[in-house]
């Protein structure tokens, strides 16, 4: 790919934390009890006409608001392209229509939920609201959905197909998918505080949700949060050395060494098996690097890496690491490069490198 500097000029995140509040940055983290972290939702009537909001599911409303705020933050009225990531799509509307098919025996169905059940409803409605006639893709590839939408955003800018790209990652919790995730053994059954997921020695994670939107551009605005230096992937590493080699290679492409990293943010989710790889990397490659985690704040969901990018970008801009995410006691200096590592079942790893504007 051609190298072009790409900046995050605006962003907004709706999450189980007060992440829309610009006056504070996780100084007061919200504690949740149990295996479900629901979003702190904004007052929708401040953003969406009530008539319109009534027809919209939570995920659509959250995305609409996060998109509006991120565009305003970047000073962009109309983006050139829209890139959306969602692991499970518009789940509430999908289930609503599915349930009505089953419960009504395939009779007397109304189309609203069906119309809004497709994965690209989020992107379609944003195009409609903003009048964007250009590319509008939706990636839905499990835990890599957001990284792939990010990849496409970077490609569009580098291909000169777009200057301002609106990129969003979102998933929503529904009552029944939550139950199904419990039955599948994916969630902690006797979860206490979300702040304790790393010390509680049980399997499973805590479910979260959220909508995080970003405005990316090759033009650095005054509002710039950080520069997206690179994004890469690691597939089925043969062993730890193979995984480490991939990380070192990515850094060296940008003339960086591990020592140059101001912070590593890893996708610990509280599941012992899942976290093993982060622990090992933390004790080896990153042993002298400040380390942080984030899923105790937003919960685990397929597009939670969008929250991690929001977190990294805010840290970069404010030059401050919130205490609640620290994994070790290594003191921080100026923050120049943040490395974000996510992975699922050690098959698919993603690495995002964010640098100072």
């Amino acid at each position, binding site marked *: *790919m*051609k190298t072009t500097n790409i900046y995050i000029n605006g962003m907004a995140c709706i999450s189980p934390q007060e992440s829309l509040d610009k006056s504070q940055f996780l100084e007061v983290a919200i504690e949740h009890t149990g295996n479900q972290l629901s979003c702190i939702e904004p007052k929708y009537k401040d953003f969406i006409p009530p008539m319109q909001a009534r027809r919209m599911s939570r995920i659509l409303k959250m995305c609409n608001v996060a998109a509006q705020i991120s565009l305003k933050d970047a000073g962009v009225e109309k983006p050139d392209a*829209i890139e959306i990531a969602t*692991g*499970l*799509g518009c789940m509430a509307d*999908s*289930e609503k*229509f*599915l*349930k009505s*098919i*089953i419960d009504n*025996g*395939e*009779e007397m*169905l109304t*189309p609203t939920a*069906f*119309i*809004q*059940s*497709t*994965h*690209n*409803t989020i*992107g*379609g*409605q944003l*195009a*409609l609201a*903003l*009048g*964007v*006639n*250009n*590319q*509008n*893709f*939706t*990636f*839905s*590839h*499990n835990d*890599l*959905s957001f990284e*792939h939408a990010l990849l*496409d955003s970077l*490609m569009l800018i*580098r*291909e000169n197909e777009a200057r301002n790209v609106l990129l969003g990652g979102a998933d929503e919790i529904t009552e*029944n998918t939550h*139950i*199904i995730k419990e*039955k*599948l053994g994916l969630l902690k059954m006797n979860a206490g505080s979300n702040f304790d997921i790393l010390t509680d020695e049980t399997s499973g994670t805590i479910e979260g949700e959220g909508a995080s939107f970003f405005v990316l551009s090759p033009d650095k605005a005054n509002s710039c949060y950080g520069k997206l230096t690179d994004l890469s*992937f690691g*597939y*089925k590493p043969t062993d730890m050395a193979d995984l480490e080699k991939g990380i070192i290679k990515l850094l060296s492409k940008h003339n960086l060494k591990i020592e140059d990293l101001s912070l590593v943010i890893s996708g610990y989710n509280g599941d012992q098996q899942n976290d093993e790889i982060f622990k090992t990397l933390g004790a080896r490659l990153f042993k002298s690097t400040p380390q942080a985690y984030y899923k105790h704040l937003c919960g685990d969901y*397929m597009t939670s890496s969008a929250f991690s990018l929001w977190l990294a970008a805010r840290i970069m801009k404010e030059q401050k690491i919130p205490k609640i995410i620290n994994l070790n006691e290594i003191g921080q200096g100026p923050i120049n490069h943040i490395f974000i590592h996510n992975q699922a079942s050690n098959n698919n790893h993603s690495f995002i490198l964010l640098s100072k504007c």
Partner: protein
Amino acid sequence: MSERVFVTGIGTISAIGNDIESTFHSLLDSKSGVGPIRHLKTKHSNDFVAGEVNHSNEELRMMAGLSEDFICTRTALLGIIAAREAVKNAGLSNLDMETTGLISATTIGGMDKSEIHYHDYIQGDNLEYAKTHPCGDNTEKIAEALGITGFSTTISTACSSSANAIMFGARMIKSGQLDRVVVGGTDALSKFTLNGFNSLMILDKEPCKPFDENRKGLNLGEGAAYLVLESANAIDLTGKTPLCEVTGYANANDAFHQTASSPTGEGPFLSMKRALEKAGLSPGDISYINAHGTGTDNNDMTEGLAIQRLFGEYVPKFSSTKAFTGHTLGAAGAIEAIISILAIMNGFVPPSLNIKTPVSDHYIRPQKEALLNQVIEHVLSNSFGFGGNDSSLLFSKLRK
């Protein structure tokens, strides 16, 4: 951005054939695959016709060569069969698969299982299928069956999904990130979509009549299709002769309504126009358009108007092949891409079936009979979807 993108293999399964050869013969013989619903368990099996793949899940599993313990949906089974054919057609070895990417599209993912087992899942039963619900799981199953271990992703943009998967694959090659990638899409017929389109009142109970004045709606279908795309570098290394070239593509948004197209067909107009621009071609260069042509009042009217607006007086031959396959949703873009490629390879124009009276508000006229011995240089293939998501792909005969 000079990197060229070649098609080196194709594979498909739909109501008109289990492979490329049978598909081509059905098209030549004007033999539609739309008929009674036999395999999908729905209350509406006698109310509607559909383009169903006439095999049970067990038969598909046998065709895919998969054992019982390979847990997957019908969507994934169809995908595996078509993707295998494409890979074989491209002459790729197991070793090649390690350096091959996969970009697969689907609209419903594992809904064909979820709609049967939804209440079971909540009770904690049949959970092995619960994991197959996400769109991404179907792609991972296809990757696993094919031995693809590198980059794979899933695009879900309603009825333009697989056209966008092809486009994204072409861009991954152009940007030098992949040398070889399997691209396409798959969707199984489901109660979810059948009832969904029924609730929108856009299903025709009879075989659909795209571009007919008295069209009554669409027929649903199911199927899968995949293309192998390779870079010029990859072609140079193997000395392979490609089937054709991907020369243009564009995705535009109508930004008008969640399900209906704008009266002027702005999105379709833009996607076709930009695909031509990307290829550096003018409207007069196009030999054939494989239209989206669903058979709904709204789509065919606006697509026709957009074609008239772009092409003016000299409109190339065009047809919709939806009356053959039904509307296969997330697979449609890829199935029709393959029909477009067959047109180029065989100097062939497939017909629009079931037309008695052409649309009176259009001056353009669809091709009603199959044509052979045509000079087909450049083919435009349209796919439009919910959310105003409009895509056009442009395939070209190899330059000598």
